[in-house]
């Protein structure tokens, strides 16, 4: 499907007018596929440097304990060991990491290694550095550590009590607190026809399971006083801002590079503590390169988990038609042992405060606590999915309680297509979307009405079949200004991305990005955009993705996160390509002795060229590049500013939010995912079986439908895995019970239903190309699966109060329901009974 590029600035006319979109919108094969499928990707662990050493961490087996003895002497004595590092030593070499949060949070001393006590299982307490990975592993076993266990803090409730403190220097476990209140709550409750009270809801901890674990190589070069990093960190400019003050080096002395990355989903953003230790080890060994390649168990225990959230005392006001008029609730987010990206999650959920719904009066009291669990990191759908799940639970619980079907409940409450762009109670602007239309498509795909009949028949036979809907927003292109709601001294806001497009000396079209793709296909979509601007084809465009402080462009926001590349990255690339196009045009007009308006961009016998329509004369890209770079005598002074090397920085149009009112636009675009599922819970094994599953997505104008569909499939698998299988559960001593794949059971093909896929396009009015960021998917299946389970089991007295549901938990919920557990979960009042 061809899309017309809509450009805003006058300058772009010359370029865009000659080239209607030909490549953007096409499902072309990914440029990077060939390389990756043939095993030619370059991953950190593939790199071998001269004199490289290997680091191995010794990790705490306790969740919370004092270190009473630590002896590395036997390890240090093992032949092949070059040095060791202990927490005490690390403390003497670095400053604690900066803290984003205000108040109590500022008092946390977050060192990259435990100093005198450990606060989560898997926290490093020492490291050994050796000539080979094998020796390092042998040596790590020789490190002797003794602990004195302390009472672990493992749940939101316990943490709030402050009986045992994770960080005594904080004086509390409460890392952040704020109240988000909009509209007139009390009035809404007074006027309500129904008030539904809902007991404790819980969004569980899960993570992502990238094929490639964390990995880094660090070189601290004592001559240049520079630290060079090859890593798979997915937000290197953020990591550098944490590493620089901790290591006491200027940010210009930290060089970051990344190559191919085998998945990330956000949780590789917070691997910077390990990067810090690797640099220290390099310094201690006189500048030898240090490689760390994490094992899977290390990854499960001590990289990052997604945020866990508990929702207390929820009250929902509804009018007599089941339209929700107010929500009042108390949320406690658990960020694990250290707030390493937090407490940003305490505001990021507010990007989707009302979900897909029109509710105007909302009050949410937010606390974030630290616990003796793995620190959290921004996990795909970060912080928004918890809120969306909460809102979707409300919809289903209220719907069932009031006898309104779950599709009807949504239709009555959805924000309407005509209301777009829609301003939410907290000032976010939903750019476009047609949720009711998406639901209609989803219902059609799955055969909703047929299933309704089958469901009714099956119920008569005593079978538990549920039909569920999940309405999910994937808010993209975040405004860092929301950090100021968390801490009004936070020196960041807005959003920007940089790109460079040039003709190289022989006329090659080369794009460099600072983006850090982990499977999102940036090389392909970047090439599609540039090909359209220049009127060439994507295989003639070379794209150099990956962060590279020295060779690629970047801003302080550069990274791959927050569903945004299609907007921010491509806008930067488009801007740079248009600049290049204008330069080419000026240069060609001079070279061909013609006028710019007569020129056209095309592919000739010798590759890409510029032609004069009137004279039929042409000059190819090699000729143009030659004129500027190696054959430039005689060029008129008016063309001396032409470099054919064009940088463009895209700035998203944001304001700093009103910090006091917690009000403002927090994200630029809102892609949507409406999923519909039919699930049967087996009456004997209690296992949920997905009988049918439909996903409908809308991410505005699509750049490459193939990539979009791939992302939808990936998100769906991730979410089904999270809903039914994957759980970072801890036992009461603080041991992670899922530290291997045998216990964590990431989803496999054997668990996946066939997916029905539908697609709609509501172009964003806020991006040059009408695109919206996508790819996080907001954990759509978690909401959808829970909705279907709720529908299946409501009549048996079960309230789905957790985002993780297994045959076992359903079995136990049914037992509880039998003993009256339901009544304590949901209570309805009718303050103004409808007559």
């Amino acid at each position, binding site marked *: 499907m061809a899309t017309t590029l809509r450009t805003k600035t006058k300058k772009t006319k010359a370029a865009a007018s000659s080239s209607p979109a030909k490549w953007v919108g096409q499902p072309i094969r990914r440029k990077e596929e060939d390389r990756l499928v043939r095993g030619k990707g370059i991953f950190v662990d593939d790199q071998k440097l001269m004199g490289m050493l290997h680091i191995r961490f010794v990790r705490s087996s306790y969740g919370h304990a004092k270190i009473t003895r630590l002896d590395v002497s036997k390890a240090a004595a093992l032949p092949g060991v070059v040095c060791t590092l202990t927490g005490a030593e690390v403390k003497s070499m670095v400053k604690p990491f900066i803290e984003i949060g205000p108040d109590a949070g500022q008092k946390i001393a977050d060192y990259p290694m435990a100093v005198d006590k450990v606060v989560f299982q898997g926290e490093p307490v020492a490291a050994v550095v050796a000539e080979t*990975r*094998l020796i390092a*592993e*042998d040596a790590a*076993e020789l490190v002797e550590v003794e602990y004195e266990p302390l009472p672990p803090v493992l749940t939101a409730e316990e943490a709030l009590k402050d009986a045992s403190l994770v960080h005594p220097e904080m004086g509390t476990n409460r890392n952040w607190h704020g109240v988000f209140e909009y509209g007139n709550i009390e009035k809404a409750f007074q006027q309500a026809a129904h008030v539904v009270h809902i007991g404790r809801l819980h969004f569980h901890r899960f993570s992502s399971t990238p094929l490639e674990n964390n990995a880094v190589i660090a070189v601290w070069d004592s001559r240049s006083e520079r630290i060079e990093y090859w890593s798979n960190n997915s937000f290197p400019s953020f990591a550098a801002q944490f590493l620089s003050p901790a290591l006491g080096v200027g940010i210009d002395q930290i060089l970051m590079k990344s190559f191919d990355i085998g998945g990330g989903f956000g949780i590789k953003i917070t691997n910077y503590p390990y990067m810090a230790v690797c640099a220290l080890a390099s310094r201690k060994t006189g500048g030898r390169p240090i490689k760390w390649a994490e*094992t*899977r168990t290390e990854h499960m225990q001590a990289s990052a988990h997604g945020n866990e959230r508990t929702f207390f005392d929820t009250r929902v006001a509804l009018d007599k038609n089941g339209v929700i008029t107010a929500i009042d609730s108390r949320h406690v987010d658990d960020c694990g042992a250290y707030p390493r990206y937090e407490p940003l999650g305490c505001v990021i959920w507010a990007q989707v405060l009302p979900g897909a719904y029109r509710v105007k009066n909302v009050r949410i009291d937010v606390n974030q606590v630290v616990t003796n669990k793995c620190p959290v990191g921004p996990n795909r759908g970060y912080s928004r999915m918890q809120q969306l799940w909460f809102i979707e639970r409300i919809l289903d619980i209220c719907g069932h309680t009031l006898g309104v079907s779950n599709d009807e409940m949504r239709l009555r409450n959805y924000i309407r297509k005509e209301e777009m762009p829609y301003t939410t109670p907290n000032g976010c602007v939903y750019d476009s979307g047609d949720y009711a239309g998406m639901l209609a498509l989803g219902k059609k795909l799955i055969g909703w009405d047929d299933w309704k009949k089958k469901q009714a028949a099956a119920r008569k036979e005593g079978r538990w079949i549920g039909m569920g809907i999940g309405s999910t927003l994937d808010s993209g292109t975040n405004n860092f200004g929301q950090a100021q709601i968390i801490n009004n001294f936070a020196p960041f806001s807005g959003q920007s991305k940089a790109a460079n497009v040039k003709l190289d000396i022989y006329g090659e079209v080369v794009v460099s990005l600072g983006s850090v793709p982990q499977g999102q296909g940036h090389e392909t979509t970047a090439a599609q955009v540039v090909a359209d601007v220049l009127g060439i084809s994507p295989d003639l465009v070379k794209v150099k993705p990956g962060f590279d402080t020295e060779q690629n462009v970047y801003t302080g926001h550069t990274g791959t996160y927050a569903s945004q590349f299609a907007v921010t990255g491509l806008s930067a690339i488009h801007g740079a390509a248009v600049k290049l196009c204008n330069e080419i045009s000026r240069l060609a007009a001079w070279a061909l002795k013609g006028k710019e308006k007569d020129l056209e961009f095309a592919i000739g016998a010798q590759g890409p060229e510029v032609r004069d329509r009137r004279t039929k004369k042409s000059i190819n890209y090699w000729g143009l590049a030659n004129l500027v770079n190696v054959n430039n005598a005689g060029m008129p002074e008016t063309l001396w500013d032409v470099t054919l090397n064009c940088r463009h920085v895209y700035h998203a149009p944001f304001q700093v939010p009103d910090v006091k009112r917690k009000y403002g636009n927090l994200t630029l675009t809102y892609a949507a995912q409406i999923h519909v599922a039919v699930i049967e819970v*087996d009456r*004997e*094994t*209690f*296992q*949920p*079986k*997905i009988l049918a599953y439909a996903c409908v997505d809308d991410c505005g104008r699509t750049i490459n439908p193939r990539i979009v569909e791939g992302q939808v499939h990936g998100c769906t698998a991730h979410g*089904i895995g999270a809903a*039914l*299988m994957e759980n970072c*559960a801890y036992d009461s001593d603080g041991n992670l*019970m*899922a530290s291997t*794949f*045998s*216990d964590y*059971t*990431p*989803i*496999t*093909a*054997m*668990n*996946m*239903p066939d997916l029905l896929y539908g697609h709609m396009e509501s172009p964003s009015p806020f991006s040059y190309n009408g695109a919206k960021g996508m790819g996080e998917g907001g954990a759509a299946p978690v909401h959808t699966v829970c909705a279907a389970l709720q529908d299946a089991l409501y009549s048996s007295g079960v309230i789905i109060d957790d985002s993780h549901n*297994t*045959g*076992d938990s359903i*079995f*136990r919920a049914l037992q509880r329901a039998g003993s009256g557990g339901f009544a304590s979960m949901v209570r309805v009042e009718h303050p103004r009974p409808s007559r």
Partner: protein
Amino acid sequence: MYAHPFTYHRAQSLGEATKLLHQLGEESRVIAGGQSLIPLMKMRLARPTALIDINFIPRLSEIKDHNSEVRFGALARHADIEMSEHIAGIPILHDCASGIADVQVRNQGTIGGSLAEADPSGDWAATLLTLETSLVCAGPQGERLVQMDDFFKDAYTTVLGREELVREVVVTKPAKNSGGAYLAFKRSACVYATGSAAVQITLDAKDTCKDVRIVLGCVGLTAIRAKQAEAELRTKKIDERTIARAADAAREAAEPQNDMRGSADYKRALVAALVKRAIGIAVRRARGEHVEAGHEYVGR
């Protein structure tokens, strides 16, 4: 994830393997498919000082149809068995082999290694206990035949002597009017089951149960023969009532533990359900029907 250092030895015959086990001492181990041993070594939970590779011993992976028996060489891979034409009359073996772990593990892991490992969650033990199975074991004193019922002593413990190996697994073909089924519930492909049930039923001319074996997997230290459940069916008409009784008895026989796969109570309920279904499928197969069965997974 590196194993402790070890030496590697390649045995050309079973005799040589037992000799090497003797020479290389207490800490030497044979390696077959390596699908239990290598993960344990990488996690350093097993630290053998010497490995004796038996994969190059000729003909040790053969599957033979031998009159009234099917004989599986110890090195027969799970995938070899899954694909073998010789198990056509014993569908329970296909149910079992086709769902063990994932395809990579099935291509490497062996029946002999699986039995010798005696993992409480191993699929083969439960399955083979429902059939007339014996093991040919070879040791320094020569060969002996061990009945399957006598083979397992405890979790990870068998009657094999330290220098003794499984050479062959011999399964007597069930009678014509006999049918079996193995059902296991797994969370995902690459993990052991949460609970499993193996049932082999022989019907008599009047369609009543002539004989039956019911074995539960993953819910005890070894696979559990549910003898009371069998008694609920033996010599009786197989109907809803007797099946329900057998399932209840199976629930009682299970001795599960709480773990990441599920709570003990849940696992009891699960195996009871699996027993009930396996009986149904076994009966249909005994009557000559073709029924697909095997492992089930979360979600579908």
